[in-house]
Every structure is written in structure tokens, then in C-alpha cells.
């Protein structure tokens, strides 16, 4: 299943990844290969298998509504490049 260069650019944009033309070509090959690989699954006859959204036979894994203490403030910011007044500081985001 060969992807077009435009499809690769579209996927890259959704992932917020900037690609130059060489990279688009290289990824077009690689992504197409991955898709081909998954095509094998289409060869399996699943006409008798009901659709499912998961591969474990689990349901209703939930928890009681009981609050527990949150993370220590220093741990919260351990990996934060910039903090200010208890907030994470990020580049300007406009609505």
C-alpha cells in the first residue's frame, strides 16, 4: 500500500513534525512498508469474529471516587524547562 507524498506531509503535520522533501520520500517508503506489513492481517478470515475495541477480556475496571494526595510540587516540576509562580511556563498560546 503505497502512501503519496501528500499523505506523508499530512500525517507529519498532524504530528507537528517538520519534514524536508528527502525525509518525506524516505518516510513514504518506510510508512508504506509498515502498512504493507499490517496488510497481512487483512488476509485473516474474521467473518465469524465479533468486533472488539480491546484484546483483553476485561470490563468495568474502575475505582471508587476517593481522592488521594497528589504529587509533591517539586516532583511535578522536576522535568519542567520553565516554571513561574507555580505554573508551567510555555510559549504564547493564542485562542
Amino acid at each position, binding site marked *: 500500500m503505497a502512501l503519496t507524498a501528500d499523505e506523508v506531509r499530512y500525517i507529519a503535520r498532524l504530528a507537528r513534525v517538520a519534514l524536508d522533501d528527502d525525509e518525506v520520500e524516505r518516510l513514504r517508503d518506510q510508512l508504506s512498508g509498515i502498512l504493507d506489513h499490517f496488510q497481512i492481517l487483512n488476509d485473516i478470515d474474521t467473518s465469524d469474529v465479533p468486533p472488539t*475495541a480491546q484484546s483483553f477480556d476485561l470490563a468495568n*475496571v474502575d475505582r471508587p*471516587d476517593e481522592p488521594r494526595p*497528589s504529587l509533591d510540587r517539586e516532583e511535578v516540576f522536576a522535568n519542567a524547562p520553565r516554571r513561574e*509562580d507555580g505554573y508551567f511556563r510555555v510559549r504564547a*498560546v493564542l485562542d
Partner: protein
Amino acid sequence: MTTATRTDYEVVVGVEVHVQLKTRSKMFCACPRDYFDTEPNTHVCPVCLGMPGMLPVINEQAVAFTILAGLALGCEIPDYSKFDRKNYPYPDLMKGYQISQYDQPLCVGGALEIEVAGDHRTVNLERIHLEEDTARLLHRDDGAGGYSLLDVNRSGVPLMELVTKPDLRSGAETAAFLRKLRQILRYLDISDADMEKGSFRFDVNLSLRPRGEERLGTKVELKNMNSFRAAQRGIEFEVERQTAILEAGGTITQETRGFVDATGETASQRSKEEAHDYRYFPEPDLPPLQVSRETVEELRARLPELPDAKRERFERDYGLTHDEAIALTETRERADTFEAAVDASGDRKYARAAAHWFMGDVTRHLSDLGPEAELSDSKVTPAHVGDLARLVEDGTITGSTAKDVLDAAFETGEMPAAIVEARGLRQVKDEGAIDEAARKAIEANPKAVADYRSGKEAAIKFLVGQVMREMRGRADPAGATEALRRHLDGGA
């Protein structure tokens, strides 16, 4: 001169409402749910921070609350429901996706009947699903393009989304729908549904079409409305704006517009109109939900009496008018308070009087205490109001005295009967005393007397007022009127 035939346009409106649920912990982690007035980033953990390797777990109470809302609104509760990932990049979305529900929501269909100026309309619902709220972004201006600050406390707060079918036909109907929805959510006690705090938010989709046309017109999405009034004004502004464009032969642009409260107008929000590609897929970290019929019935049994049923019962059992019953069932607390007052009065025959006092002077006192004050915020209890209603109805005190007694009760918390006894406020039916006061009033007010005699019937009210003043409000008003007439008409 000929008049051009104006096309009559009809507005078609649907709404999306986001409601934060009043759970104790967050949707997928045990962080405290409350984020209002908290220090930023104190109610966060690896799950709601979206750290790699975290594992969300469903809050059972949030699921129960959503099903309760669905049952209250007549939704179907399917046996099977699941969560999905909705992918989009935005800095307030910690994981790069929101856990939401795509094609198998917890509640399907349903309807809400609204009443606007006596007309009823059934507003059908599309669905109700459960998702998580995003983090909060604050914008800071530093004179160099600015920057943003992120508070993750709101991230992961349980958010219930309700979507209607395009069944609304005016701004007034939309406001009525939103009001009633919020009322029901508060009756269910599953959300504060407080617009100012952001726990009840909505967007509107609307389009215009010539009346009689089946096909929908071009859709405009309306955002930034922070009150019911704003919803109504925003829609009404759009109807005018779009009608003008269509009448001039123009076409409507499909776009998102924001309501500007200061001007009452809407403005295009120039977003980079790229079609969203959310790439929904089933959330692999959350096994699906199987909702048993037992669970549904258990929840159904927990439903309180809802506003419509309560209103009908109040009309039937207490002989209230439609409008009185609407006012007294506005909140569950108000309805309970009214019923407690009727109980305390000792007889249902005092119910109308109790309703009268609640809707008049009690409401006035409460609004002095704050915009959403209830009786429990004051020194007055339902028993005070029941007592007052009985004292007025059985003629122990006059309506005029009752106002003073209520004022005193709000001030001191004393029971009306005790106030009446302590201050000697019983209604005076003594004809001699009333007669004497009437005579004084006539002597002291020759102008009112002349007015009355020249045919100004209203002048008698002024004189009755003077008699009341003379007798500190305790005179039986009918007796006072009678005494005045006797003097005025007889002594002409």
C-alpha cells in the same frame, strides 16, 4: 409604491453543553477534583500530567452521575460503552489526546420539554458522553509577544458532554433549555453547574433557512457565551446579521464566531480553519464498560423527584398557580423549604399564604443576603414562614404587621408568634379604636377627603394607610375601610 416581499427566516439551533461533575476525585486518577481557588499544579499526578507510562482508571462515580443524568432526561442507557482517544495538539491537553467517547457513549437519545411563554417544545437529545477536562492556560503579556502559563489542576476533571438535536427555534428557547437543563443537573446534585466557575459551559450551532424549507442552511458555531442571557442575545444577533446578508443576496460563511458581551455582537474567530482530524480510536488503557440492567435500575431508584413532577404536585396538592409552583420549585432546596413551612404551619390550607410570603418578602430578604442565598443562609427557618402564614391567614395579625414581624424574624431569629406576643401586634378588631383612628385620619387630611368626595376612589387607600399608621399597622384593613366610608359617606 410596492413593498418587497420579505422572506421569513427560521433559525435552527442545537447546543453542546459541557458539565463538570461533582465527584471528589478526578476522572482517571485520585487527585482531588476541586480546582477552583486552589494553588496551581497542586492537584496533579503522573496520570493527569500525562506522563509516559501512566495508567488511567475510570472513576465509578462519574459514570454513575452520567447515567443518572441520562435517566433524568429519558436517554437510553446501552449495555456497552467505551472510551476513545481524541487526538489533537494543544498545550492544555497534557497527553496530546483527550480521553472521550466517540461512537458508544453512555447515554443515547433522550429529550427535555421546555416551556417558553406558555408554549411547549420537546428538545431531543443526541447523546450524553463522558470525557475529561483540559488544563487551564493563562496568557501573560511581556511586551514581546507574550507567553502562557499552565495550571494542570483542571486537567482530568470529569466532564459530561450533552449534545442536542437541532430542535431549538429561537434564542429564548435556547436560554430556556439551558436553564432547565442546569436546574435538573442541580436537582440531581451531580454538578454545581455554575457558569461563573466554568462548571456549566455551552456552545451553540445555528443556521437560518426560509420558513417551510426542510434543508438546513449554512452552520455557524457560536462560542464565548457566559450566561443564559448571552446565549439569547448571541443567537438573536446572529439571526439579524444573517437575515441581512441573505436578504442582500449574500451567502453565509461557515465559521466559528465569538459572542462579545460588551457589545452584544458576534465576531468571526479567525481560526486556521483546518478540518479537524481527531483520529479517534478506542482507548487501549481503559477496558470497556458493561452497564448491567441492575445498575441502571439501582440508579433509577436514586432519581429525586424532578422539577416538572414537583411543580405538578405543588399545583395539585397545595393549590398553587402554575407560576407560583414554577417559582417554588426553582431549586430543590427552595421546594423542600416551602414544604417544610407548610408542614410547620399545621395545615395545607396555609400553603398559598406560605407561597405568597416566600415569593414576596422572604425572597426580598434573601436577595439582600446575596444573589443565590437560600433560607438556610438566614436566621429564618421554614417553621418561621409557616408560623407567619398561619398568623396572617387566621387573622391574628394583619398583612402589614406580618411584614414587620418577618423583618424582626430575619433580624433576631425569633418565631413570629413570639414576636407578635412580645410586641403586642395582634390585629385590632375593636371597632371603637378603629373608628377613632378613622376620625383622626379624616381630620388631619382634608385634601384626601376632598379628593375622595370629588370621586377619586383611590384617595380612600391613602386614608386607610393613615389609619394603619395611627394603629401601628394592627388595624383590620377591611374594618378601617368600612369605618372611613361610614364617616365620609355618612357625614357629607
